[in-house]
């Protein structure tokens, strides 16, 4: 029988004191954005269906999409999509062992934010 050598390691799971490094922020925001997109599937499907249904439902779609609270939600969903997209490409590259060294991984995490935030604003300007 092997000796019990499990040590009590120090553990800190207090979310208010954890300072995540940049790749950690990309990772948790990937999850948050994914969850947000999932929760809003019905909203997006409804809008998509209305936009394609008939000239009348298209007019309803435009009116609903133009309302301020809906615009705010759509802006959030747009950011969620763009962040999830950019972070996802980074994760795919990490999967094939591109940029897995610490320094490279930190830099690519910064690139995700440097691309996703301006891209969200540009798309926002074009679409909303």
């Amino acid at each position, binding site marked *: 029988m092997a000796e019990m050598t499990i040590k009590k390691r120090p553990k800190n799971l207090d979310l208010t004191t954890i300072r995540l490094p940049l790749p950690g922020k990309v990772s948790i925001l990937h*999850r948050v954005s*994914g*969850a947000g*997109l*999932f929760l809003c*599937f*019905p909203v997006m*499907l409804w809008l*998509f*269906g209305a*936009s*394609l*249904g008939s*000239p009348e439902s*298209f007019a309803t779609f435009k009116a609903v999409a133009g309302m301020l609270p809906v615009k705010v939600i759509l802006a959030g969903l747009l950011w969620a999509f763009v962040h999830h*997209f950019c972070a*996802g*490409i980074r994760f*795919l590259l990490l*999967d094939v062992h591109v940029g897995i060294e610490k320094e490279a991984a930190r830099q690519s995490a910064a690139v995700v934010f440097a691309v996703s935030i301006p891209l969200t604003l540009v798309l926002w300007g074009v679409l909303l």
Partner: protein
Amino acid sequence: MINRIVVGAGYGLTDWIAQRATAIIMAVYSVLMAAVLLVVRPGTFEAWQGVFANGVIKFLTFLFFVSLFYHAWIGVRDIWMDYVKPTGLRLTLHVVTIAALVGYTAWAAAILWRL
């Protein structure tokens, strides 16, 4: 044999690969559609409907939705597995998630094939 803890997931590579394959399909579709919309610039209802009435676009859009919902299943399932400890509640959430996603798939098909 080790006592296996029921977490409600498969135990192979299938989902891991499916998550990445669906991600690539959606990424390619997104870039492709952005290009199509930039070229067509559908400003009216007729033009917008015309884009999705095209057989190829319709097929690719449905493929996108199926990829999206499969991808979402894996991601949301992982979230339930990470944060929801009581097995009964977790498996219930799994079932609700699958039911919703299957419903959304039918909804997406109905939107596209009404055109």
